[in-house]
């Protein structure tokens, strides 16, 4: 295909590359700005106001304040708890459900599927949901963002589709050897489904990492705040006072600005660093989901 490109083709290519390059720049620059601002000198950032092409007056004060803040650490700890136990519960419950629903010979399979799918299109609303969680006694515990979200129906359906593709003969052979359903699920199906389970783990983990809304309505004890709620106080409610020690009002305001940027970095960097490695798994997940459509 080494035919010479016509003028029209060339114009098309130039436009294409130009548009996409601009897009890349627009997407990337805000993040670069935050990164630069976070390691810049507070006074400079406030005075400079605007486009940063490099850090001005490199200074790590803001990071010191952020890492010196107890709430950030306890936030990390609580988020870790929610992710670890939440994802374990998610995977356990989702694979149980997906396994049963993927078997053809199970009684009531169809009605149960309908029973589950209805919940994707209709729900009782926020207030009754809150009252249920309250009624079950989960309010103000770290289990509140975990138990009521044990299964994501969409993920359940994806996993079921994937389980269905495992040949039934394997299962029959195991049955003849005297395996019960638990043995079949944990010894045969799950080991064969590692790639999709990895995708599920990622999806659930990211949900837990980013989730804040339900934590904010279910948890009022500040010691139990997950990281996102701690960040919300700093970024959205603008309370950085507790974090910078001493100094006059103006200094406080200035350092407050860079503390915000440093907080963004501290809470975003972990996920941005692992994301290039996880990207293809995520993409795979989206594909699996879309095929089902």
């Amino acid at each position, binding site marked *: 295909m080494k035919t010479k490109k016509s003028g029209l083709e060339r114009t098309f290519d130039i436009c294409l590359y130009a548009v996409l390059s601009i897009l890349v720049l*627009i997407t990337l620059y805000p993040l670069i700005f935050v990164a630069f601002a976070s390691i810049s000198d507070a006074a400079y950032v406030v005075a400079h*106001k605007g486009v940063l092409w490099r850090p001005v007056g490199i200074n790590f004060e803001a990071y010191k304040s952020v890492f010196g803040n107890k709430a950030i650490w306890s936030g990390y700890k609580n988020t870790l708890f929610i992710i670890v136990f939440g994802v374990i519960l998610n995977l356990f419950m989702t694979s*149980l459900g997906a396994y049963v629903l993927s078997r053809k010979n199970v009684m009531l399979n169809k009605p149960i599927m309908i029973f589950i799918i209805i919940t994707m299109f209709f729900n009782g*609303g926020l207030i009754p949901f809150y009252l249920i969680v309250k009624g079950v006694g989960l309010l103000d515990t770290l289990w509140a963002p975990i138990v009521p979200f044990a299964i994501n129906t969409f993920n359940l359906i994806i996993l079921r589709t994937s389980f269905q593709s495992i040949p039934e003969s394997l299962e029959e052979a195991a049955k003849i050897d005297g395996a019960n359903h638990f043995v079949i699920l944990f010894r045969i199906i799950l080991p064969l489904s590692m790639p999709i389970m990895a995708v599920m783990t990622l999806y659930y983990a990211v949900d837990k990492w*980013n989730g804040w809304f339900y934590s904010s309505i279910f948890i009022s004890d500040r010691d139990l705040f997950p990281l996102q709620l701690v960040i919300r106080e700093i*970024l959205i409610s603008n309370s950085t006072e507790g974090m910078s020690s001493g100094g006059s009002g103006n200094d406080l305001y200035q350092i407050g600005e860079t503390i915000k940027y440093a907080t963004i970095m501290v809470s975003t960097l972990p996920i941005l660093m692992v994301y290039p490695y996880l990207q293809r798994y995520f993409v795979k997940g989206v594909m699996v989901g879309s095929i089902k459509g």
Partner: protein
Amino acid sequence: MMIPVIAYYVIFQYGPMYGAIIAFKDYSPMKGVMDSEWVGLAHFQSFFESYYFWRILKNTLILSLYSLCFEFPAPIILALLINEVRNKRFKSIVQSVTYMPHFISLIVICGIIKDFTNSGGLINTFITYLGGDGQAMLQKPELFRSIYIISDIWQGMGWTSIIYLAALMNVDQEQFEAARIDGAGRLRQIWNISIPGILPTIIIMLILRIGNLLSVGFEKIILLYNPAIYDTADVISTFVYRKGLLEFGWSYSAAVGLFNSVVNLILLVLANRLSKKFSENSLW
């Protein structure tokens, strides 16, 4: 084995559906759902007659329609563009960078939005540079919708484009070959082959979208809005949240939420039926 799964659905999914009957009662936490007094449609009536009804319904619809018109096509266009790139390296750079914002948490995104749109923020610096006036944008009701939609596109476009890229990969390559021989230019090929090729995917995505027409991303609005811009920013779900959880109007708020769910369901069924009729694509 199914017991824990069914139990989960009964308690946390069907429980709230049952609990929604408080919309027809005067719920008091002391009496509980069962023993509270029935009041019939009183809460619905007072909602429909209130000043808020039109405001939040209008805001919800406008925001949804904007997002349908601007946000929905963006990833499709992006996917079509990325699909035309022949240089593998450049392609993977574009993809990696545009996916990235999807991984940043909403709180951080909103923090950045607030910071960039305040009077001395990055965006205003650009505007002043170009000769305009800097202003605290999140205090301006008329700017809220644009801020909401543009930042949504920024965050979600790349990620959603994956679905369309996957669909594009399944388009028969021979058709492009044939079109080239017939002398069709690149735009022509996009228009006559690529777009029809991914049309079923587009329609499915569209149906799902319409089913959620009334559930605009309220988490983001809660993080961004303030009383100064309720006029354009307050939507059904944020109203439910404020009235119910902050002001403890349980029953009233539950009625509003139920109204939202029912309208969503109707829209979904309608969209699905329309699509079945015109394109043979449907969810069920």
